[in-house]
């Protein structure tokens, strides 16, 4: 009985690195800085293939991954998925799970907007965040950064590309102005958008 092997193996490279290196790659992204404070013992793993993706790995998982890498294979994903790294701005597209975790450990939101239920539904259909939907803004926001989108219930529902440079700017917008464009939301997979193509993201 032949064993099906993964032919993609040769095209992907995974390696362990440090928070310092990840901070360098993301131009000191605040979420990475926070992660280094709240999860200091984790190791950073970066996998480079069609996309560059970062993970946080604890010692137990590291042992398994080392055995995989030593056999010239690679993990598909592991531990805490931090997000996708990019060479141009935004340098990082953080994952929903990563933001959920660091907001929880930091016990506060940052780089995020909270939206009302009326705005959440369209956001989960891939629409952008409009000024009329925003109920709270958590600094710092920078134009071109990817920020967290939080529902009224406190859960992270997705990430979006900020179109404003700070929270005060939001106040000056008209109700139908875009505060942030949808990059990824938790309804993405449900909509059948399983092709993990960057061009599908609005960045």
């Amino acid at each position: 009985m032949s064993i099906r092997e993964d032919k993609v193996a040769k095209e992907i490279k995974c390696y362990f690195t440090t928070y310092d290196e990840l901070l360098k790659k993301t131009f000191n992204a605040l979420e990475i800085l926070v992660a280094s404070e709240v999860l200091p013992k984790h190791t950073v793993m970066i996998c480079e293939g069609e996309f560059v993706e970062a993970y946080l790995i604890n010692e137990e998982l590291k042992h398994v991954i080392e055995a995989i890498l030593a056999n010239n294979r690679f993990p598909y994903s592991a531990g805490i998925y931090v997000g996708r790294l990019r060479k141009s701005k935004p340098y990082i597209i953080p994952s929903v799970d990563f933001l959920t975790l660091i907001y929880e450990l930091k016990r506060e939101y940052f780089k995020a907007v909270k939206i009302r239920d009326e705005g959440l539904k369209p956001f989960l259909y891939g629409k952008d965040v409009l000024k009329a939907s925003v109920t709270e803004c958590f600094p710092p926001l920078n134009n071109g950064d990817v920020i967290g989108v939080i529902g009224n219930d406190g859960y992270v529902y997705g990430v979006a590309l900020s179109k404003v440079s700070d929270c005060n700017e939001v106040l000056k917008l008209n109700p139908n102005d875009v505060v942030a464009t949808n990059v990824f939301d938790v309804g993405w997979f449900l909509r059948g958008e399983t092709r993990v193509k960057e061009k599908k993201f609005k960045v």
Partner: protein
Amino acid sequence: MFRTIDISEVEDIKSWIRERLRKSEEVKVLASKYGYREYMIARYYEMLGSWDEVKELLNAFERRLKHSIRCNTLKVKDCRHLVERLEKLGFKLKEVDFWNLAYEVVDEVRSPTLGSTHEFLLGMYYLYRGKASLIPPLILNPQQNDKVADLAAAPGGKTTHLAQLMNNKGVILATEVGRERMRALRNNIERMGVRNTVLMRVDGRAVKYFLKGYFNKVLLDAPCTGEGLIMIDPERKIKTSFEDLMKWHESQVDFLNSAIETLNVGGYILYTTCSIAPEENELVIAKILAKRDDVQVSTLTNTPIELSQGFTEYFGLNLPKDVSRCGRIYPHIHEMEGFFLCLLEKIK
């Protein structure tokens, strides 16, 4: 009456069974009435021993299963909060009788569907087509410091359940070879907030090459014909020929044999299928026991329901008596999809 013989003395099991498949009028009538291949009906008689019980099984396969959900305590601190949110949407839930963190959905609304609520998208629950899939992780009963492998993991119901039982501690290696199935698995892992898992797109049989003897618990929910899922997918009444069934059998023996290599001495492997076919279940276990002397069938502990026993005789083939320690779930007895579970311990 056929004579009986020890299974290890039969070289060609396929021919042995085929020669003994009953071709009676009852078989033809029931196959035609319920829309099955005749060989399946003949096997059900051999398994159950009476036409009345065969009819009970066939009628149970005609009934639709209610959805079940598992409250994900990795995301939800108090499951009553989830129940309240879903009840506000119009769903009616009833606690599953064998595990208090799972609920049978007794009444559903048209919109949103259970697979599109905000609560689902946030990973507050996992949705099951039937509740039997909840049972394997409960039997394997992983602890927080365990090293666990789930060797055919997609779409991730059992992997995420194992992670929940381990409270996101310890290690799970979850493998899946199919590209699309891996995407579904990864999505479920992230959605459910699972963080103690390494996903790997590889045939689970290859894990022995790099993590031999590493795990103390292995779940092999083996790829199978799905003969226990007829109420969910009626196509399965005619999908699998007897020839194909025996190919599944060979592949399952190979898979289980490889999976055992990843286990450390004293470790346990839970072999499961969503099939009621003895060819995919007891006969696989019997072949493994004949092949190797380093595993033994363990009594199923932590069983949340009373399971039916595994067969020790099938079409005149005598199987090792320990195979009776394996467990079966029948639609007409347990009111769930058909399932098979067998726990093996690696003893040297």
